[in-house]
């Protein structure tokens, strides 16, 4: 019997939108490998397994590193190049044998956007009930919340000033893309953040 290929292996959307206010640029990121890990995050063995799998220290509460996102008190989202998720799961499973945990490859479940530009936090603030003032939300800060009506997580990346990575379920990606585009329109910024 032939293998069923469950990998979608292509972004749902492609493109870059840079028609927004203040040099805003919205882009769909290339596919990333994603592994969801549920475990007691305070255990040293879990931190060691995360380090071994994706090379990241354990992120603090509501924090993101380059490859590990804090999603809830017992849940991390680990990022790696697309196609390496199975290897990461294998590393986690080996390092955490005997430790109560769950590690699953969810690479195809979500779409990653990047919104950059000085008005990026104003755009996000239109849809998310989060304090995005510069002194309240900085590089490495992450919130799992909603944007408009859909569940999403976003964090401020260290790749440059005002770069935000936005993660949402693939099935909502088109909606969120259109919402972000609409909310980025020239002349629509309150100009308070």
């Amino acid at each position, binding site marked *: 019997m032939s293998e069923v290929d469950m990998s979608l292996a292509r972004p749902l959307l492609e493109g870059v939108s840079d028609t927004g206010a203040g040099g805003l640029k919205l882009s769909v990121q290339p596919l990333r490998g994603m592994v969801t890990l549920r475990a007691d995050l305070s255990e040293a063995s879990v931190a060691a397994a995360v380090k071994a799998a994706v090379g990241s220290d354990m992120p603090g509460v509501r924090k993101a590193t380059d490859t590990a996102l804090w999603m809830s*008190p017992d849940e991390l989202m680990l990022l790696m190049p697309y196609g390496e998720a199975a290897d990461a799961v294998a590393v986690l499973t080996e390092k955490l044998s005997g430790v109560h945990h769950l590690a699953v490859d969810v690479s195809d479940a979500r779409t990653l956007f990047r919104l950059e530009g000085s008005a990026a936090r104003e755009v996000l603030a239109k849809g998310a*009930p989060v304090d995005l003032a510069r002194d309240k939300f900085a590089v490495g800060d992450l919130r799992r919340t909603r944007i408009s009506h859909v569940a999403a997580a976003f964090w401020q990346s260290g790749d440059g000033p005002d770069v935000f990575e936005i993660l949402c379920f693939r099935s909502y990606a088109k909606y969120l893309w259109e919402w972000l585009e609409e909310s980025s329109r020239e002349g629509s910024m309150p100009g308070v953040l």
Partner: protein
Amino acid sequence: MLLIDCPCCGVSGEETEFAPGGEAHIVRFGPGSSDAEFSSYLFDRKNPRGVHFERWRHAFGCGKWFHMARSTQTLEVFGVYKADVTTPPQDILDRVEAAKAEGRVK
């Protein structure tokens, strides 16, 4: 608009990030109970004008369930506490009593 502090992840969020889960601390009547008890367990809910103990879930955030005591009259939140208890903690009951004594809630 309710402002809610999630006791599980510490986020101070607003109501739309959370989902209400109805009245808290309902005692289950299962096999062997009378029809009246079982019916009451299934259907009878308080609908107070004043202090209400409720279950909530941080639906768009960490996803955890927790308990909250609030006033349905003024939307004052007296406190949040963990999901795995059958009665509210004493400090929240004290705050409710203080609010009653000051006449803020019935």
